[in-house]
């Protein structure tokens, strides 16, 4: 169980280091994701070791957002002044992005004759 955790941490560490060293706007964990993906491509055997642990962590991905979510409740006062406009903007914009994203995906899939 320790090996997969070490692999995840090493990838994150490498990502954070690269992000800082190169002054990239992309956060370290995202670079770590890309790094692990490349490692998995080159050495598929690593997937057998990291796979189960990764799946366990991702099954409870929601838990990891709870501390930040509670932070929102602690800072709700920043929304007080414009709460209505912000609420409408946020909901409308999220729905628009979902519709445009899913619509474009399906449209281009059909154009390119991709599998259904």
């Amino acid at each position: 169980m320790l090996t997969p955790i070490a692999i995840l941490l090493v990838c994150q560490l490498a990502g954070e280091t690269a992000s800082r060293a190169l002054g990239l706007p992309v956060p370290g964990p995202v670079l770590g994701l890309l790094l692990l993906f490349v490692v998995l491509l080159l050495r598929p055997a690593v997937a057998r070791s990291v796979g189960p642990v990764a799946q366990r962590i991702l099954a409870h991905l929601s838990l990891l957002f709870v501390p930040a979510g509670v932070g929102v409740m602690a800072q709700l006062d920043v929304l007080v002044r414009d709460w209505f406009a912000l609420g409408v903007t946020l909901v409308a914009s999220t729905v628009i992005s979902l519709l445009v994203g899913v619509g474009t995906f399906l449209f281009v899939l059909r154009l390119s004759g991709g599998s259904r």
Partner: protein
Amino acid sequence: MTDVTEIWSYLAARPLLWLTCTVVAYLVADRISLRLNRHPVANPVLLSVLFIAPLLWLSGTPYATYFDGAQFIHFLLGPATVALAVPLHANLAKIRDSVLPLIAALFAGSLAAAGSAIVIAMAFGLPDQVIVSISPKSTTAPVALGVSEALGGSPTLTAVLVILTGITGAVVVTPLMNMLRIEDWRARGFAVGVAAHGIGTARAFQVNETAGAFAGIGLALNAVLTSILAPILVALLL
């Protein structure tokens, strides 16, 4: 026997209490969500927050004290993001099959997320600083904070809006897609990853493994794209 207040002041100063509280609140929330067949409104993040916030308020606990305990869970967001490479790799064949739709949907979805937020916020006559703060709301928090700060927005406001966007996307995506009779899990997952980052991705994993994998790609690619696109859109539109 030790006084109750003495025990409280001991526990209140340690990480254990709020760490335990966070895990237990989530377990209860997850149970409820499961019992309700993963109904979108019974979102585990939302429920957990609604359980914990009143406890903090009633006990007069500042967020900083809560976070001393909760930070151990918060920290795992990094390794969990890295772990998204695993479902990505496992779905490689499906991804290869849909590279073009994926890239098109990434640009369209990301553009729509930031662009519509800026335009609607402008229509409401919100101040520039607020518009800048809302523009990167669909991407993962560290990127959004960086973008907001660089453009002169308020990182605190952005942090709040990012989380609320994630919860909104996670709650809205299932009924919206079902209403439109969209059954392609790749398209559904990818769209929610782009529009509602990690919290949307967590929802996608709840519903379908393929949707989760595609949401993970959407989240990762949009982290890169928003950091480039949001500043351009703000310059063009504002």
